[in-house]
């Protein structure tokens, strides 16, 4: 274990410094940086798997001279699982990046980009294995700062700088709350070690526990991107280079999920009233639904994917929230089920969201635009990217037999099992959450039908798309790894569930692996086979057999017929991209139906010909969605700060004499205090 950990550390640190030794040689820098990152993440995968199978958590620590800080690491099953998730995405990103960063040659320092990439992966790994609050906060801050620098890679663009600033502020507001939460535990435990957090000298009072719950939810929720703290995601994720967006969206926001589980189930010992779980459930349901609804209206592919991260964090929190509710009533098996469903969706989302961001990166690489309305017909020009993206799209839409289906099915079941709860209120609320999840699922399907249909099918809508070419092989391999995982994680729940059970077992005190796996692992059955069961391998077999039957019937009744190609029928008009449905048009009915939420504003300007008002010279159509949270929640707060700054500015006129006077006054006041 120690050797593997050193290998991981050495890999990332090598990637941090080696590229800097070869200035002005971007090719060598690229290979060195991403090769070492691949080594580090490869070691991370092994470390994660071994940590999951280990009998006892592996620990190591180095004391520091700073009070309360010790560089302690602990690899229990929960931490191992997240190390595994981070490293899987990290490995795929390392391979993908070898091809992708060639785009940046000559524009951005590859050494800096590669070094930051390695540092980012290392800091995320440290966050989940840290066993000391102080150390955790250092790693957490490092993760935030490094990702900020990565977001502003293309800092010459004003919108990127704005995105970076927005992210920097939001993440630090979140960190402030995290520090507050840890101070509560520190006050009771007298030490920053997680062991003291778990078993404090004097137990926390009920009020303090509730405060810790709420503060942790806000602090980590900011990072996770729960509604209404999600506003930074659609700015920051698109601004970063795509392999970084994949890591931020697929993995970094999951460190917050890790921290929430760590705080609620580990530090607070899984002892809480039902309404904590209910709050998490409501936050999850609202995030899932609003996330997908805003994603539907986006036409910037990367912004759209960022909103889908909000949705999927919501789905994960639905599972965890249901688990917390069951836990509070002592229904341990169901609590383990909800938690397991949330964790299953965590790794699934990491895989398919990273895949989709890689796909978006490939489209950006090939067409140099993120605007979906300029894509079209790309499946024929980029068959590999298209096929991989389709697998990702099917997975995120939770269609069988992929991984997204399995984890969403488990979340559904943990919500449906609410009839075992003692209160009518919760019995009612959980199925309503399930209905919201059903709506979320189908809207995600619509959204990705839009993305794939508009981007990859029909005719190219711009010259960018007409001249697009398939991306380099490393990028295809990076996507291929994740596409295989998407299918594999869906078809093999009999392997994944026992592994996840090793995490939820210690946290809830009950092992459910044997109960959940029915028919020798070929089917999942959360309560008993009679209540519900699903068999992903059997579903896949049925689908393949059904497809073959269709082929056979077509041959049986029709024999061998060669298909003829002819142009699309368009009422006598030759087909052109201008006749195609646009992304905006595709979702227009949904926008109209849910106009209460979207509050669209439409602006139509028409300029007529001078000779006759029956002919138009120029027409301009604009449609905007009301950014409700930014307008009603963030702008008032920002305005308050701007007003305070305006007042302060009067006293900060830039006069040197005045500033010297301030220093003198401050010194005198301090001296007075010292006396």
């Amino acid at each position, binding site marked *: 274990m120690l050797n593997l950990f050193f290998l991981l550390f050495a890999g990332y640190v090598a990637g941090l410094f080696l590229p800097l030794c070869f200035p002005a040689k971007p090719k060598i820098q690229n290979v060195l940086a991403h090769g070492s990152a691949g080594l580090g993440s490869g070691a991370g995968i092994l470390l994660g798997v071994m940590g999951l199978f280990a009998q006892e958590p592996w620990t190591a620590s180095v004391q520091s001279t700073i009070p309360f800080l010790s560089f302690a690491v602990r690899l229990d099953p929960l931490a191992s699982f997240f190390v595994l998730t981070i490293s899987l995405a990290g490995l795929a990103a390392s391979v993908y990046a070898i091809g992708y960063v060639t785009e940046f040659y000559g524009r951005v320092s590859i050494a800096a980009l590669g070094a930051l990439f390695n540092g980012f992966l290392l800091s995320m790994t440290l966050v989940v294995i840290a066993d000391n609050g102080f150390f955790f906060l250092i790693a957490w801050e490092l993760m935030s700062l490094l990702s900020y620098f990565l977001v502003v890679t293309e800092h010459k663009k004003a919108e990127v700088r704005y995105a970076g600033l927005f992210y920097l502020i939001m993440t630090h507001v979140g960190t402030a709350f995290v520090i507050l939460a840890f101070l509560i535990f520190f006050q009771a435990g007298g030490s920053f070690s997680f062991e003291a957090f778990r078993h404090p000298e004097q137990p926390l009072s009920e009020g303090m526990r509730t405060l810790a719950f709420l503060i942790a939810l806000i602090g980590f929720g900011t990072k996770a991107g729960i509604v209404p703290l999600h506003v930074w995601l659609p700015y920051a994720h698109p601004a970063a280079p795509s392999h970084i967006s994949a890591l931020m969206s697929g993995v970094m926001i999951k460190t917050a999920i890790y921290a929430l589980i760590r705080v609620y189930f580990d530090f607070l010992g899984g002892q809480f009233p039902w309404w904590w779980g209910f709050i998490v459930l409501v936050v999850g349901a609202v995030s899932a639904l609003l996330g997908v609804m805003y994603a539907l209206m986006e036409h910037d592919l990367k912004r759209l994917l960022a909103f889908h991260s909000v949705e999927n964090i919501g789905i994960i929190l639905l599972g965890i929230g249901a688990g917390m509710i069951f836990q509070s009533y002592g229904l341990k098996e169901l609590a383990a089920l909800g938690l397991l469903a949330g964790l299953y969706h965590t790794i699934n989302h990491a895989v398919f969201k990273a895949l989709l961001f890689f796909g978006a990166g490939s489209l950006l690489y090939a067409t140099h635009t993120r605007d979906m309305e300029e894509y079209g017909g790309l499946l024929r020009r980029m068959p590999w990217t298209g096929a991989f993206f389709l697998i990702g799209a099917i997975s995120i839409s939770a269609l069988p037999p992929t991984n997204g289906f399995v984890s969403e099915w488990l979340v559904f079941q943990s919500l449906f099992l609410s009839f075992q709860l003692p209160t009518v209120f919760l019995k009612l609320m959980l199925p309503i959450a399930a209905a919201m999840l059903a709506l979320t699922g189908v809207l995600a399907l619509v959204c990705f039908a839009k993305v794939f249909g508009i981007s990859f099918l029909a005719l190219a809508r711009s010259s960018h798309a007409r001249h697009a070419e398939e991306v380099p092989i490393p990028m295809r391999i990076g996507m291929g790894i994740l596409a295989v995982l998407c299918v594999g994680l869906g078809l093999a729940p009999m392997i994944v569930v026992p592994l996840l059970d090793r995490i939820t077992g210690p946290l809830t005190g009950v092992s459910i692996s044997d109960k959940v796996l029915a028919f020798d692992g070929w089917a999942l059955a959360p309560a008993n086979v009679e209540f519900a069961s699903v068999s992903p391998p*059997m579903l896949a077999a049925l*689908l393949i057999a059904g497809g073959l039957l269709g082929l056979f019937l077509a041959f049986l009744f029709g024999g061998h017929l060669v298909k003829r190609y002819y142009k699309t029928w368009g009422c006598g008009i030759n*087909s052109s991209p201008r006749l195609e449905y646009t992304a905006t048009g595709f979702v227009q*009915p949904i926008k109209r139906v849910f106009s209460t939420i979207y509050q669209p504003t439409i602006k139509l300007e028409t300029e007529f010909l001078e000779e006759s008002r029956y002919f138009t010279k120029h027409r301009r159509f604009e449609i905007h969605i009301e950014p409700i949270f930014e307008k009603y929640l963030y702008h008032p707060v920002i305005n308050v700060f701007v007003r305070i700054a305006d007042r302060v500015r009067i006293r900060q006129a830039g006069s040197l004499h005045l500033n010297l006077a301030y220093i003198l006054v401050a010194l005198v006041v301090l001296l007075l205090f010292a006396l």
Partner: protein
Amino acid sequence: MLQTITLVVAQIIVLLGISPFLVGLIRKVKARLQCRRGAGIFQPYADLAKLFRKQPVVSSTTSWIFTATPYILFASTLSAGLLVPTFASLTPLSFTGGVIALVYLLALGTFFLILAGLDAGSAFGGMGSSREALVASLTEPAMILSIFAVAMTAGSTNLSTIVHKTALLESVVTDPAPHLMALAALCIVAIAETGRVPVDNPATHLELTMIHEAMVLEYSGRYLALIEWAAAMKLVVFLSLIANLFAPWGIATTLTPAAIGIGLVAYLLKIAGLAVLIGILESMIAKLRLFRVTELLGAAFILALLGVVFFYILRG
């Protein structure tokens, strides 16, 4: 094992075999109500056979998605059909999945059909896809919730178990209110999902009104045959659901030849009766404007939700 395989094959034959008949029956009922003689009830079989023998014409702008979609749609609809009890309550493949698997299998077909509609690059296909997306997004939550309202009485979300327990009177419906609400919701969902009046009109080729037909406008030959067959099977799936969830009378609960014989006759009578009802309904009402459809589907969702609420309130 042999018994299982026989039952699966029997169910596949039933699904494939009777689906064109139902379409023919509905058309016949509508024709008679319009004082026409109409084509024979078995005309859809001849239509399918004709389509299979025709050379398919494919748009040159399309990708492999367009040609793969008919097979995927056929496979997903057939798989969904195997999860629903038809003439026997114990479906051999019921362990494969319950309500949610059913809904998501059908959604898989819808997903590819939406893509295929966009693939040809014509405005018709896009229009059909866009409208189908709207209808699908409103029906699916209502469908899950309505079946769940029934599922709670039986203590299972597995369709086979629900039907089996209800047929054996193991789970007795004490309060009919939740069931009636769920039934109403599921009927609306079935009409919307199978593209029937007042949501969609399967007999139209007018761009203002069509949804499903617009999506499949570019299809011909064997591809169109598979899509039409899949659409007919989807109708069977929904009619079987309604018939067996709410009226499992006569269904074979054991696997004796006599029970299966009675089950088969009862099943055919029930779904033929429902098909006649659809025919009458389609003759009586006009198609709704697209944005009025959302109100109907919203009502289905509210009904299903009320079904769940009432179940818990009545049980206390």
